């Protein structure tokens, strides 16, 4: 069973202060900590678990700058066998469609029975790359996948619907499955694994290698382009409770009391 995992290197922004840069179309990236996209962390783990059970290989692929080697090293340390980074100045400004085109060109020349992606990226989160990739490759897909069972060329998957409901679907392999968080428990990397991963080779490819023209990637090869980024208007202004933790606690308790809850 040869599995390909598509991973994205994204800034962690939940706790960080976000500033819009001078172009007005992107955020200031300096000072932000980057890591593997949360969804891809689960996708990678799922690929490694399947490999451990069924044998075969796991190849991790990312499109990004040189820095994204860090995400590939993490994949190698966690059990991926090969890693490919796609880097080219022309790739910049690519939306999910252009990203999927690039991925499809590389993947079609690799052996695989299964491609795993995240259900979405935590930064721009269009949630499109997996299904577009499948369509370009002419294979079926399922998104929001919370469980995978493989049997005789068929993937039996649980797809997450709304409100806790799930549906079970059967997909004929080869296929693309876009993984939802919580499907497994991503493992920690051992120091030895990390050391070994540092020695492994990362294959680097550019536009010329993938066989796409300049017009098919980047902004011109995309469906959508950012015009402006802005801080969302506040719909409702919360009242700030200030003071020492004890004072704040007293204020919260007071609110509970007025509500008749104490």
């Amino acid at each position: 069973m040869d599995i390909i995992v598509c991973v994205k290197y994204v800034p962690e922004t939940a706790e960080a202060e976000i500033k819009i840069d001078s172009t007005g179309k992107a955020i200031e990236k300096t000072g932000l900590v980057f890591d593997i996209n949360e969804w891809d962390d689960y996708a990678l783990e799922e690929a490694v678990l399947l490999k451990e059970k069924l044998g075969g290989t796991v190849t991790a692929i990312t499109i990004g700058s040189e820095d994204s080697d860090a995400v590939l090293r993490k994949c190698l340390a966690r059990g991926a066998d090969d890693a490919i980074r796609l880097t080219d100045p022309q790739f910049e400004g690519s939306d999910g469609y252009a990203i999927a085109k690039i991925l499809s060109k590389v993947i079609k020349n690799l052996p695989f029975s299964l491609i795993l992606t995240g259900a979405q990226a935590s930064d721009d989160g269009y949630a499109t790359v997996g299904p577009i990739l499948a369509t370009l490759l002419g294979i079926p897909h399922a998104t929001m996948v919370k469980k995978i069972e493989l049997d005789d060329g068929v993937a039996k998957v649980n797809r997450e619907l709304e409100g806790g409901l799930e549906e079970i679907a059967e997909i004929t392999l080869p296929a693309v499955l876009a993984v939802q968080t919580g499907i497994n428990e991503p493992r920690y990397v051992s120091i030895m694994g990390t050391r070994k991963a540092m020695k492994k080779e990362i294959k680097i490819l550019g536009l010329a290698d993938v066989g796409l023209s300049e017009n098919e990637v980047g902004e011109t090869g995309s469906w959508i382009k950012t015009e402006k980024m802005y801080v969302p208007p506040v719909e409702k202004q919360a009242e700030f409770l200030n003071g020492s933790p004890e004072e704040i606690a007293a204020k919260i308790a007071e609110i509970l009391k007025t509500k008749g809850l104490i």
Partner: protein
Amino acid sequence: MTEIFVLTEHRQGQIRDITFEMLSKGRELAGKTNTELTAVLLGKEVKNHAKTLQDYAKRVLLVEDTQLENFNSDAYQKVLSSLIKEHKPLLTLMGHTSFGVELAPSLAVSLDTPLATDCIDLEFEGETLTVIRQMYGGKVNVKAVLRKAESYIVTVRQATFPVEKEAPMNGEIVEVPSPLSEEIAKKRFVKYVLPPPGGVDITAAEVLIGIGRGIKDGSNIPPVEELAKTLGGALACSRPIVDKGWLPNGCQVGSSGKTVKPKFYLALGISGAFQHVLGMKSSDVIIAVNKDPKAPIFGVADYAVVEDLFKIVPPLKSKIEELKR
């Protein structure tokens, strides 16, 4: 006259709310662009739905087929492609739901039609379609433009467009023969399953303390649980807490969890992602504790506390115990 398509989302005999939200927005857009609003309904034995939709659209395009009984993106894609090729709608709207996310991207590729997903607003400026969407967990908004085309596909966020009460449109039901000639072989619906929730019923609690990733580790949960107990309330959480296995899935609040409306919701270390907020925004009083003054949760909270949650929990517990005495 060209049309705006709204794809009806229905499951287990119910038309889902997102459909009416899109029809409301679709009606507004149709007015502005001088187009007609069409509800597209695919299914098996769904004439009752078609009747309901007559009130909301100028036309209901109905395609029935046994292969459309349950949602299957392959089957839906084939039927929709054929409808879109024939009608050339200016715009096709669908929900950014489990259903739309599975369908829209492959439909867009097969028709070579630009797609924007998870939009919270959209507008035509002349022939150009601009959309508003969120990035970085709701910390910034993006105004984006789609490549110019004759037809567009957009998926919209749930619970974003209000359903306006308007005069019924008495739309015409147009039955279209199913273009599905072969069996959809590579993807098959098996059944629906509802995993057992586990834990207490958080929808019944008057007081809820919601914990998020700010709790850092499962071992930090017991003191918060104690606090909830002191208040006679229950513990709820954001999705990562369930994903990590720290609380049972019945505790999860949000679009893929429970919708709660307690009298009091205390959010501890929750950033306020849209999917979480959807499940708790109707609570009577919301207090959010977060280290980040820019956390989106403060946009739905009544009271905001910019502080380390670990500094608030112990004094709050003693304060409440004091008041109870």
